[in-house]
């Protein structure tokens, strides 16, 4: 089920186009990653999603309600953190949550306690936010976003400032929210390795344009496979492989041979090397990482733009 849809959304500030004709959809029950280098327009898009910035042209629908014409209905389905989780530092964690609870209908005292426990802050709720670490503020931010049981959770850089254990916890937690509560979770980040572990689908944005939307599993598997061979004497091996097989590319570095190709017959290749008295120390399969893939995509299409 489509929960969020962006239809040809553009944002112009003065004569400058910040976001150019962005269109994509996010479904219930998935974690959607919003990926792009700094300044690509991630935060601007999120600000338009939650109504902090006006949409120049196009429209955004959240659970069927237009952000432009029916903002209050649309935003009532959304819980969000935009950039840093900035809370009132002079209030306690509990008072902060109560503050936001007063602004939405139907949030009970029990619900406040419930979300506090959910993010593991139940023992620190009476303390002022001033005394919280960045990680705790991040959690309080998430608690605040979950108060009114939204259908959409939007988090800008949610793992910022968390320690590895905290990152893992948040990651598992977001996945669980998507699966169990059937929420649509949108996460923005420029940390690819993080996105790879957290998201189901990733949209890549660059210079205000959507470059690509892919399933994370497809993205990883569709990457090119290459092999690294460590052998001696290396020059001889290089000569042999270059001449012997069609349709593969061999590159030589100091210690290793890099073999790239869609259909490398590894046993045959090894056999050939051994038959020619070359010692093989290691043959390793390399999957292209999401990071390389990302850099490849952004440099290819970025060049055109």
């Amino acid at each position, binding site marked *: 089920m489509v929960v969020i849809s962006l239809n040809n959304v553009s944002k112009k500030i003065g004569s400058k186009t910040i976001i150019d004709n962005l269109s994509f959809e996010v479904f219930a029950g998935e974690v959607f990653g919003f990926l792009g280098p700094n300044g690509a327009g991630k935060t601007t898009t999120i*600000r338009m999603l*939650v*109504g*902090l*910035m*006006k949409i120049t042209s196009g429209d955004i629908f959240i659970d069927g309600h237009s952000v432009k014409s029916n*903002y*209050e*209905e649309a*935003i*009532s389905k*959304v819980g*969000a*953190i*935009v*950039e*840093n989780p*900035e*809370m*009132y*530092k*002079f*209030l306690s964690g509990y*008072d902060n949550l109560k*503050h*936001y609870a*007063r*602004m*939405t*209908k139907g949030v009970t005292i029990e619900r406040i306690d419930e979300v506090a426990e959910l993010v593991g802050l139940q023992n620190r709720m009476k303390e002022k936010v001033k005394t919280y670490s960045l990680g705790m503020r991040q959690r309080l*931010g998430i608690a*605040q976003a979950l108060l009114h049981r939204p259908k959409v959770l939007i988090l800008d850089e949610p793992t910022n400032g968390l320690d590895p254990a905290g990152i893992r916890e948040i990651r598992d937690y977001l996945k669980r929210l998507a699966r169990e509560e059937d929420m649509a979770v949108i996460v923005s980040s420029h940390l690819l390795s993080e996105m790879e572990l957290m998201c189901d689908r990733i949209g890549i944005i660059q210079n205000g344009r959507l470059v690509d939307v892919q399933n994370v599993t497809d993205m990883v598997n569709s990457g090119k496979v290459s092999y690294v061979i460590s052998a001696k004497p290396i020059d001889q091996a290089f000569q042999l492989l270059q001449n012997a097989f069609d349709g593969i590319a061999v590159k030589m570095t100091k210690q290793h041979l890099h073999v790239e190709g869609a259909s490398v017959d590894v046993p045959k290749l090894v056999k050939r090397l051994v038959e020619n008295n070359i010692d093989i120390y290691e043959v390793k399969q390399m999957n292209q990482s999401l990071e390389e893939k990302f850099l490849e995509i952004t440099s290819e299409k970025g060049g055109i733009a």
Partner: protein
Amino acid sequence: MGLLTNEWIKIFKRKSSYIMIGILAIIVVIAAIGITFINDQDTETGDNGNWKTALETENKNLKEELKSTSDPYKKDIERIIAENEYRITHDMPKVTSYNVWTFMNGMMGVVDFVALFTIIIAAGIVASEFSSGTIKLLLIRPINRAKILLSKYITVLLYALFMLGILFVLSFILGAVFFGFEQNQPHLAYLDGQIIERAQIPFLLTQYLLSSVGLLIFTTMAFMISAAFRNSSLAIGLSIFLLLVGSIVTSIIAGFFDWAKYLLFANTNLLPYFGTGLPMVEGMTLSFSLIVLLVYFVIFHVVAFWTFVKRDVTA
């Protein structure tokens, strides 16, 4: 309602609010102690018996003076003569020493401090949300922006009323304790050439509220600057600067040009229309001032709401 609760809590969970209340209390206490001290040294000359003849001679002198004075000051002298005559016929000697009412009347000057504190609150209430970044989480709620801004404005007004209430009650209590109810008599108001007796508490309440008109306008201006520029130091600085310099500059301009009467500062003091002091430019009336103030008030609100609702939030 929830919005007002939120804003009220946000004001009173800060130390600065308590400091302001503290300063207000200290000013009143110091004034009470100071006046008692001066009063004690000022041993009253007991001319209790012949105060009537003293007033009569004063009136005679004033009537002489009346013939030679120019128009704007005439009214003032006429008022004093009328008051003196009323005192003589109703056997009400002038209040010679401090009592609770004169003290409260004197403490009306402290309304300027309340104005100062309210301006500080008004300047911060919108701008501080921007500078701390909390505006983002505040605005992404199913409540439109105009309502959020209105709740903040109402909170500022409530804060002003709260502070005025503290000032009023505190100066009443301290005045009663330090000076008592000696020579207790109603206030003598001068309206349309007639002296009218007024009960002191309602009279003082209206005086306090009248002297708060400036407070209301300057607070609204600070609020507008806060909402439009999203910078609390700018809002505080500019409002206080205008508060201090505005009326002086306006009175200088008023000396040369007639259009000075359309300036905000020529109209913030409504007390002249109720028998104390003189308006800045001749020929100004209460309804004229009220209309000018209303126009400024509406402009401030239109600017504040328009910029707050329309502009993108990039904090």
